[in-house]
């Protein structure tokens, strides 16, 4: 594996982002929205309590979809060394990333036009798929 320092640094950064995105409930705060974790993601996520999971009775600092993306990014990034050991001829994850993006748009529009109602769980899974494919789309660049 090449660029081990870069790989490790990004892994730590993604772990921290995931921990921070869980909001004030993880850090013993009384609320998330007035807490530094809430401030951190305020410009990136709408932080709608109806669309967020709760930790220790406090909403997370990001909504379920964003949390899924961050979780997927970390999960995918963690699996990069395993995929490097595999014998894949081509990296399929760039195409899967495109598919994940299209699915996000379809899910978003379907919910908007009342064709279905997405839930925190469905948004989490789709977000996770997007993050997972985004991380693994670059795994072959770490081949030494």
């Amino acid at each position, binding site marked *: 594996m090449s660029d081990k320092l870069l790989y490790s640094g990004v892994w730590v950064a993604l772990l921290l982002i995931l921990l921070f995105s869980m909001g004030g409930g993880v850090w013993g705060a009384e609320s998330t929205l007035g807490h530094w974790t809430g401030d951190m993601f305020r410009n990136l996520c709408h932080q709608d309590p109806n669309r967020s999971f709760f930790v220790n009775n406090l909403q997370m600092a990001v909504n379920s979809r964003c949390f899924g993306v961050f979780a997927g990014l970390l999960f995918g990034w963690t699996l990069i060394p395993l995929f490097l050991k595999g014998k894949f001829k081509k990296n399929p994850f760039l195409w899967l990333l495109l598919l994940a993006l299209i699915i996000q748009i379809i899910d978003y529009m379907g919910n908007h036009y009342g064709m279905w109602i997405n839930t925190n769980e469905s948004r989490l899974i789709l977000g996770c798929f997007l993050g997972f494919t985004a991380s693994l789309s*670059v795994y072959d*660049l770490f081949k030494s």
Partner: protein
Amino acid sequence: MNVEKESEFEKLTFKDYLPSSTIVGVIFGLVTSVVGLFFMYQQINSEPSTSMTGMFMGSISMLAVCLIAACAGLVAVWHFTKEVTSTLKLGQGAVIGFLTGAVIAIVSVLLSEAWATFIDPEMMRNYADSMIANFEAMDMPQSTLDDIAESFDEGDSMFRQLFINIPLYGVLNLITALIGVKIFADKPEETF
């Protein structure tokens, strides 16, 4: 030809990365700020609603801002491969992505500060009132409403915003920049 390419590749310094990161970062910072302001004023001027429409507009705003901001790393790498060299190492792509994210954070924080200071000092107050009115219409618990009001009342210093936004935007753009390296860059040839 390969020797020329290799020497050009090895001469790259920090200054070579800055133009692409700065140009793309400033453009994306401006775009995210304008889109964010547009939706913020749309939210301020909307009636409180229980139908989630107001929140939906907010969601679109954040989705747009989030997607635009995160794609900048990829575009910066594309720009770099067009303007400087098409041969790019993974680490160099990461630097371009992180710098681009940092520029976006700086531009958007500076613009929002300038807007709130010189153009519309009441904007954040009006936005907070509008958001709280929406949450009230949705029968949110009073404690949640108090938290939201408190977070808007406390405000945020510019340096604190930069301190928390630069690493976040930096890492997100770093990852999209790596995707950019995958799509647009030629890998340097190994020399033994």
